[in-house]
């Protein structure tokens, strides 16, 4: 217990990390800045995915659908209606959350394991097909341009300015999810993951928690999608195919399943890693595939578990085994 309380005190220090990141743009060249922004985009994406897959332990493969829906919501609202970007973040989160809710319906009806995986995989592909076919709104397979984002009238026309917006959003998402996981919700997730039947028998309304996690996860990933939209400035259906799914899977597997810190570490590693190699088509898939294989075989709890071994402050008490 002493170790745990010591850890809790030290955990406050983690909030220094975003502060320490504030001056980073002074040293980064535009390319490095773009990579860092992309890493920030993938933090909420990884967090939302990890909640459902890692914390709740359900095989839902529809994360790319929430991501794409969030991105297209922001893209379409800014391009067609001329709304400023910051006003579209909440709609993107809502659309992502609704998609998460829809994806949770089969889980509520008792579809589990591989069956749930197959259904959610089909759902994701169906969404991608929708982006291709709904040409009037999405520009079809050619894609659509996303206008320059504005934040309260301030034009986010450089990667540097977007960095601060992304950093704020990411910190908000991390803080909110951390609170959620440390409340009784987090303990309920743990109980459901360990043994759903026993959790239900203890009076935990498992169905409510499942819906909540899917919706929360979807909303968070939708915010990530909204950030992605303005970061790349151009949306096309190719960005939301099964290759993207493996990238997002690599984030949570490499970072650590069910670990909030893991989602952050995974987002950083998986975004930066491909930049080190000269990129050939197919190389990323090959590297991510091998990386996931190695992680499952030799480090099943991901990089976050290495940190947890170093110091009790890194141990996340709302997740185990």
């Amino acid at each position, binding site marked *: 217990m002493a170790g745990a309380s010591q850890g809790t005190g030290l955990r406050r220090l983690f909030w220094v990390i975003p502060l320490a990141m504030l001056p980073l743009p002074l040293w980064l060249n535009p390319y490095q800045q773009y990579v860092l922004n992309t890493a920030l985009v993938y933090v909420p994406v990884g967090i939302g995915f990890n909640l459902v897959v890692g914390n709740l332990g359900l095989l839902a493969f529809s994360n790319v659908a929430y991501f794409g829906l969030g991105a297209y919501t922001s893209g379409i609202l800014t391009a067609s209606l001329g709304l400023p970007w910051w006003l579209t973040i909440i709609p993107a989160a809502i659309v992502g959350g609704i998609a998460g809710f829809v994806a949770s319906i089969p889980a509520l009806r*008792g579809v589990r394991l591989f069956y749930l995986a197959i259904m959610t995989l089909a759902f994701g592909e169906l969404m991608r097909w929708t982006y291709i076919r709904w040409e009037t709104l999405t520009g079809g397979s050619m894609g659509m341009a996303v206008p320059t984002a504005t934040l309260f009238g301030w034009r986010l026309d450089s990667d540097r300015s977007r960095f601060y917006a992304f950093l704020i959003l990411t910190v908000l998402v991390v803080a909110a999810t951390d609170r959620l996981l440390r409340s009784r919700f987090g303990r309920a997730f743990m109980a459901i993951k360990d043994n759903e039947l026993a959790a239900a028998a203890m009076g935990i309304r498992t169905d409510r928690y499942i819906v909540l996690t899917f919706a929360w996860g979807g909303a968070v990933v939708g915010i990530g999608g909204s950030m992605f939209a303005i970061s790349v400035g151009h949306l096309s259906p190719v960005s939301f195919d099964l290759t993207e799914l493996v990238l997002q899977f690599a984030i949570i597997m490499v970072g650590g399943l069910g670990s909030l810190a893991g989602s952050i570490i995974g987002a950083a590693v998986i975004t930066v890693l491909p930049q080190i190699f000269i990129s050939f088509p*197919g190389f990323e898939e090959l590297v991510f595939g091998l990386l996931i294989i190695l992680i499952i075989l030799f480090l099943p709890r991901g990089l976050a578990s290495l940190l947890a071994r170093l110091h009790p402050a890194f141990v996340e008490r709302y997740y185990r085994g």
Partner: protein
Amino acid sequence: MMLSLLPQLIVSGISSGMLYALIALSMTVVYRATTVVNFGQGDMVSAGAYAVFVFGMGFGLPFLVAMALALALLFVAGFAMQRWLMQPIIAGPHLSLAMMALAVGYTLRGALRLEWGNETINLTRPYPQDVYMLGNVVITTDDVAICGFVLLLFAALFVLLQVTPLGKVIQATFQSQRGAALVGINVPAFHATMWGGGAALGAIGGVLLAMITPLTPDLGQWTLVQGFAAMTLGGFGSLGGAVAGGILLGLTEKLLGFYVNTMFIEITGYLVPILVLMLRPQGLFGRRAVVRV
């Protein structure tokens, strides 16, 4: 006018349905043997087709030799994948098993893309390309080859399962792994063999698929979804169901595509697993796929 095309639609529906049936069967064999769904099977299918391309057109071997080599290669790949990648984590959570299979598929696809990029490859048919007219129904040699080959394969599998001693072993292990282990069947070896067999079956599907569509590394993605659709439609884990589900899927796709809206040709494969698992989770011939909590 509309109805006069019906026989033609049925013929082409059955022809593509046979392919889906074969792919679904290759996944069902693996699932029945190990209760693990191979999410990498789609890429095994396209790897099989690429292997035939390399052996046949790269090394200039005759088609049947190339195909035999490709099947052997994929068998070894499937066997090795089960033995060294799946078996060590078989007691772990389902998520790891699904991820492992998916990751193997991605590694394969990445390797294919690295070598052949996004170019499309057409396999040369080992038979002349021709059409027969049956009344006003056009039947291509592709239809004949695919249906003939798949039916022959199904017949061979049926005999293997029902008549031979090996079939008895397979059926026994399908029924109860523990029971099979108790009577002296080497269950881990059996698992690996069935993964190899599933991969080889999938490779045959890939080669036949390559007769009618150009090969791209992304073929595996589409194949996986179609295979799932056929599998869920027929009922998970049922061998006969996989075949029936595949043929039904092919027919549904073509009929809805023609009579309702062409978009159904593209999305039937996505809609079927969603609808079937929501409305009738056991599919047509399978067991219940639902966990009651």
